[in-house]
């Protein structure tokens, strides 16, 4: 972890964050740019939360949408009930954690694919059931629309994205991180060496779903109105998963890079191709999984390696930069 260039990465990151923080003060960004950046920040939170499980622990959550949608919906209803924003967002996040308990406790003791199936099943069941129960678009009270301002939403999402990345950094470099690596690389060996695999898995699942629910809460605050079931569509699973994998699962920077790429590609392609941009995206994604399972970071590292500048650290087939 303590690679030579890690302080450089930090510095670059810090400069980027300061720049993003000053951006609304320096220039009057259009609504489009604002929307784009806020979505980017939300994606970063989601991609990092997926990555904590998929990349670092080897648990593939293919039902992120369940936890995101739960955060969105609960935050919405708590806000409607008149609670302050932070209570509402926290409520959304905590309810996502409760949901994680329902799924995590029965499945995390079993083989990994049970967890994957269960998360997907949960997301689908919620999508269909929520669609049955709340078929119409839900709205915040009208004064929210009248007083709508991008600035607090921008800072909230930026702040949460930065905090998420920092949390990941701290987690990965802590004792927990070590345990996670051990579990990912060889679960049986980890068990034998006295690591309480179930405990760590559930902790990580809770953290990940908390952050996912949080992202949902921020999304509610930013969107104001939405179709309830569409927050549970697989779209909300795919995109973080793709962002993390394309960027580089099992690295901290990967999901950030992947989110940027994804948002840019989507913005760019969806203008020309509309819905069909997913065809392009899906193809890129498959090629990436087959030829460079470590994502962009792996490609970059390979380039470094070939040019002899940096020695690649291999861990199974994933490569870490940082």
């Amino acid at each position, binding site marked *: 972890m303590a690679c030579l260039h890690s302080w450089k990465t930090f510095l670059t990151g810090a400069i980027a964050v300061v720049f993003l923080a000053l951006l609304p003060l320096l220039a009057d960004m259009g609504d489009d740019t604002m929307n784009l950046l806020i979505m980017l920040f939300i994606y970063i939170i989601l991609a990092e939360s997926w990555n904590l499980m998929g990349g670092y622990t080897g648990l593939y959550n293919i039902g992120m949408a369940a936890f995101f949608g739960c955060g969105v919906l609960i935050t919405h209803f708590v806000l409607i009930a008149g609670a302050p924003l932070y209570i509402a967002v926290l409520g959304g996040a905590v309810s996502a954690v409760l949901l994680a308990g329902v799924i995590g406790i029965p499945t995390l003791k*079993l083989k990994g694919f049970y967890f994957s199936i269960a998360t997907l099943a949960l997301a689908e069941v919620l999508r269909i059931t929520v669609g049955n129960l709340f078929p119409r678009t839900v709205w915040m009270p009208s004064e929210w629309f009248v007083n709508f301002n991008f600035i607090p939403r921008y800072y909230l999402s930026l702040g949460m994205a930065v905090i998420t990345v920092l949390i990941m950094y701290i987690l990965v470099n802590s004792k927990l991180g070590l345990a996670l690596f051990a579990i990912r690389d060889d679960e049986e060996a980890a068990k034998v060496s006295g690591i309480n695999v179930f405990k760590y898995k559930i902790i990580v699942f809770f953290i990940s779903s908390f952050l996912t629910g949080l992202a949902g809460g921020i999304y509610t605050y930013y969107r104001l109105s939405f179709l309830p079931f569409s927050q549970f569509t697989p779209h909300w699973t795919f995109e973080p998963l793709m962002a993390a994998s394309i960027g580089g699962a099992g690295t901290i920077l990967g999901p950030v890079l992947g989110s940027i790429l994804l948002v840019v590609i989507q913005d760019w392609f969806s203008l020309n191709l509309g819905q069909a941009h997913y*065809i392009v995206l899906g193809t890129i994604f498959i090629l990436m999984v087959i030829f460079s399972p470590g994502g962009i970071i792996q490609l970059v590292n390979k380039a470094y390696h070939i040019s002899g500048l940096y020695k690649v650290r291999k861990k199974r087939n994933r490569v870490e930069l940082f």
Partner: protein
Amino acid sequence: MFIQVLSYGIMIGAIYGLVGSGLALMFGVMKYLNIAHGTFIMLGGYASYWLFTLWGLDPFKSIPLVLLIMFTMGIVVYKIVFSPLVKVFHVGERIQNSMLITFGLLLIIDNTVTWLWTSDVRSITTSYTGSTFRLYSVNLPYNSLIGFGLALLALLCLHLIINNTYYGKSIRATTQDWEGATLMGINVDYTYLISSGVTFALSGVAGIVIATSYSITPSGGLEWLLKAMIVLVLAGEGKTKGILAAGLFLGVVEAVGVSLVGSAYREVFGLLAFILVLLFRPQGLFTER
């Protein structure tokens, strides 16, 4: 009334079994968790839909053609996107990578289908659609009956193939231990290839049944994937034996639940059954440990 509910449950349960069998076969033999399974079922449905709409081919008469189309598709998909994963020997890793790849496939196919044929809900309406068969006090739609029979027939064929042919033997051996199977002189790669074809053919049959008894949409595959996954877990990992029973169980549980609480919560019963089984019988409902 109760018998009516039960008969609906059983009829759809057989389809759940059929839908689950393809997923279970591929997962058992190749250790690929095919997230696009439902999507391929939809493709099978579209194949029979277009054969019917454009050429007037009766959906149940076009079965051989749909089977052929889907089998070929299975071979092609295996050659292009599945085969690179054969080199991943670590089972967990192979499952994970296969999820990612089939996720990508799902995205591509879903959106291609939407792009080509819009996201309209379609179903095949034949001259006999809507007519029912009355057995004592129970109404049974002809379409569902044929679909039910077809699902049972497909599962029976699969059962016979697995237990009585050399291909079936190679499937079972590879499922248990691919290295051991290789040492017996079994060409594991070829077994995978054919299994992929057979899985897709099963998806084709399921697609026909679903297009005639229910409906197909580009994104409708996910709902069927959900059923297939629940069936897979209820039957137990790597078991093709309990698949039909698991499907029937799920169908009946859902039907009874719906009649008691209301159809808005249909999916919740499946999920509940799923979680309870994972908690108390993770090895599957019908297998003794």
